[in-house]
């Protein structure tokens, strides 16, 4: 019997997740609450069933996530009895760093990149799972499944370890760490198909609903709380929208959509002509910007 495409991907990911649990002393799963994290968590639960996950989950909270994301995160943690750590860059909070006042670049750097480094240093994690896929962005396409980071958490794209077969090099020195991407070979459509097939719970923000939005810099932004600071000329409208990716709400553009179920999302996706990261303001700051962020330690 031959395995189907999804079954092959599923087994490959489970193998990667088990390998980390076997070889690292203190791994953690970065849980971003998005659909890819949901799939990654689902695979991890399968990898170790009937045992509990042999590692903790970590959410780096920028304090600007959609409220529904935070609620979903806490619901999932209690439903599956997960050890969930939440880390916030308190230094950033003290200085009132935010995406509106300081721009996406500084906000992402302080509240996400720096916060992640703080958390990894604080808990001394030696391996961190991430839900990134190689089809998301051109520079991701070149990243290894086990991606080595030096003591400053930097990624050196020219100095990556060759990765042959499924023989991952898990050896690191003290203070160094590895980012592990079990979904490397999945595409966006694979992820949705798997969510559909496995009936995986995802944040309702992915589904279309009437939501209060404003138009700002070509992005449709949802008015999730008062901090969005709606200007007089910006009109709040209720529109049928959904989100293709989830991040900080003032940086994540909604798309107009009628897709209210996973099935409808898949149909929409197949007919759509815009790629997934399009809704994110941070990628287009400058050409090659994702690569720069990653070299600095962004996930």
């Amino acid at each position, binding site marked *: 019997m031959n395995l189907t495409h999804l079954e092959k991907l599923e087994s490959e990911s*489970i193998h990667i997740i088990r390998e980390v649990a076997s070889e690292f002393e203190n791994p953690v799963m970065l849980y971003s609450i998005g659909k890819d994290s949901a799939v990654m968590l689902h695979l991890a639960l399968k990898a170790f069933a009937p045992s509990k996950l042999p590692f903790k989950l970590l959410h780096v909270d920028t304090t600007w996530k959609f409220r529904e994301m935070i609620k979903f995160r806490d619901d999932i943690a209690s439903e599956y009895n997960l050890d969930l750590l939440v880390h916030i860059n308190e230094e950033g909070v003290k200085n009132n760093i935010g995406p509106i006042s300081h721009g996406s670049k500084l906000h992402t750097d302080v509240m996400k990149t720096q916060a992640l480094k703080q958390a990894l240093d604080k808990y001394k994690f030696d391996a961190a799972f991430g839900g990134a896929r190689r089809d998301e962005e051109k520079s991701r396409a070149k990243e290894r499944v086990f991606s080595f980071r030096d003591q400053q958490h930097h990624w050196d794209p020219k100095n990556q370890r060759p990765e042959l077969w499924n023989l991952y090099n898990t050896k690191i020195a003290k203070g160094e760490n590895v980012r592990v991407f079990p979904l490397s070979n999945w595409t966006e459509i694979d992820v949705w198909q798997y969510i559909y097939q496995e009936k995986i719970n995802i944040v309702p923000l992915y589904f279309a609903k009437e939501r209060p939005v404003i138009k700002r810099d070509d992005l449709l932004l949802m008015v999730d709380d008062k901090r969005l600071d709606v200007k007089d000329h910006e009109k709040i409208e209720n529109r049928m929208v959904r989100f293709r990716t989830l991040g900080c709400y003032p940086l994540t553009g909604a798309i107009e959509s009628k897709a209210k179920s996973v099935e409808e999302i898949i149909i929409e996706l197949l007919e759509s002509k815009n790629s997934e990261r399009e809704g994110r303001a941070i990628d287009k700051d400058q050409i090659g910007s994702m690569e720069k962020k990653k070299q600095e330690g962004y996930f």
Partner: protein
Amino acid sequence: MDLEKFFQHQNNKKQVKILTCGSVDDGKSTLLGRLLYDSQNVFVDQIDQAKIESEKYGTQGKDIDLALLIDGLQAEREQGITIDVAYRFFETSKCKFIVADTPGHEQYTRNMATGASNSDVAIILIDAQKGVLEQTKRHSFIVNLLGIQHVVVAINKMDLVNYDENIFHKIVTEYKELIKNFHFISTNYIPLSALKGDNVFSTFENTKWYTGPSLIETLENIQIEEEDFNNSFSMPVQWVNRSSSDFRGYAGTISSGKISKGDVITTPSSNSQTSIKNIYGPNGELDEAFTNQAVTLTLQDELDISRGDIILTQDNKKILKVDQFAAHLVWMDQDSMLPERNYIFRFNNTFINGQITDLVHSININSYEEIATKKLNLNDIAYCKIALNKMHSIAPYKNNHQLGSFVIIDPYNNKTIGAGMIDHALRRSTNISWHEMSINKNTRSKLNGQQPCVIWFTGLSGSGKSTIANILEQKLHTMNKRTYLLDGDNVRHGLNKDLGFTDTDRVENIRRVAEVSKLMVDAGLITLVSFISPFRSERKMAKDLLQEGEFFEVFVSTSLEECEKRDPKGLYKKARSGELKNFTGIDSTYEIPENADLVLDTKTNNAEELADQIINFLESKKII
């Protein structure tokens, strides 16, 4: 749209993993961009961005440069080259393709081997204007070495040779000759133009003389060798699942064959056997499971099994537990491979230290000649014999890619420095076992009233190692301690007189001395070793041979200028004049110790005082 049907169809799509190989200007990125673009796997905003970048970096004038959809990293985009392995995804109505895109430069052979290790099919690009190049030979060799069985030869840029049929046939003939000794199951040849899209998705009328399928049709129709189910079952144990006292499962990915509930299983070294109680797949209990599936097995009776073990059925005769084997190697690091140096070998489910004991020959991948050699450099390919410090279950690569492959890791910096494919097991060592003597190290050291150890002096020639070691030995002797001094020059007159001063010989020189010093410690002696021992790796190897607290590294830190000024034997002068080759510090490296137990400064103290420092040190460590 009927979604159930749609997903059924999606699920029935074959997964095909492709490796693309070509040289710098064969138009590989353009072909990949074409495949993505024509299969409509590129989104509008990605095309828009490629258009913006085409104006900045593009090579196609006002047209969109399809290669820019592909080349990922900024640096390489500016240079117009691909520098690493990148993975691409596209699908057609029949297949889901995962493409490993690898560069064609000579210095990046390692990336090609990396891409090839996870591919089913190789597309070999040949520029119709240039024909079969050395790189074509090299790529084909690696593809064959890594066991890829299906090759598609894409003869590109046909538009630039006026779609000339003769040029196409000449290249086909030449390529057939090239691969006559390889083990490809299928080889297809397609004339195409990636730039124009001719014969990529549909056949093209400018090549009417070509009646075969387009590139995509060819890829869709290749019958990828599915796992041979007559192959016996094996599964490396990856993780032991103990969820409660009554659940003990063995998790792993099946590496060959098929397993059913009730099948009798064993492990390669064990005489006991039991049967499969339950199989848990990703979706719960299964009656049977197959190659590449990640499962958890429970057994009727408990066997002593942990990570590193292999579960197999008894009919599995190809898997042997040994500590020596022969293999093909691809060397992937700037630092050369030296025989007898200590490396970490990463197998499917375990890491074991070991050495490459014999370098049988290296292979010139341009002429396919076998060449005698003493070391391997970056991108070299060779046939070797390897000895592990521990027994491990292996299978020949051709029978089992999972159990027949390994990567090599540098124990110093943890880099992945090589990859290997096992040819066959060597069973010669299994008959020799270490004799346990009734008088041992402990009884001898009790009688001697001392703690045996090695004091390992390292430093440049003329740094003062032997002088200090000599005074130290005299001092220990007057204290009634039993000692022996192994001196570099003296040992080279006897035990090591067959060795010269190349890096390879230096490694062997130190290996022998380390082994001798280990025997001397076993004999209960305080052993002084005075050798330049320039490489960290060998000093670590010597240390690893001994137990904790038995090895002390003493770095005699005289500077090169100072040694050269002293030049007691006139050697530096000879080395500088070129009369003496491979002299440490001049044309051979000295790697300064990073964590020496003791660093001696010959500028501030004389030899007598330094020897006293060592005495104090040994007292503090309760050796004397």
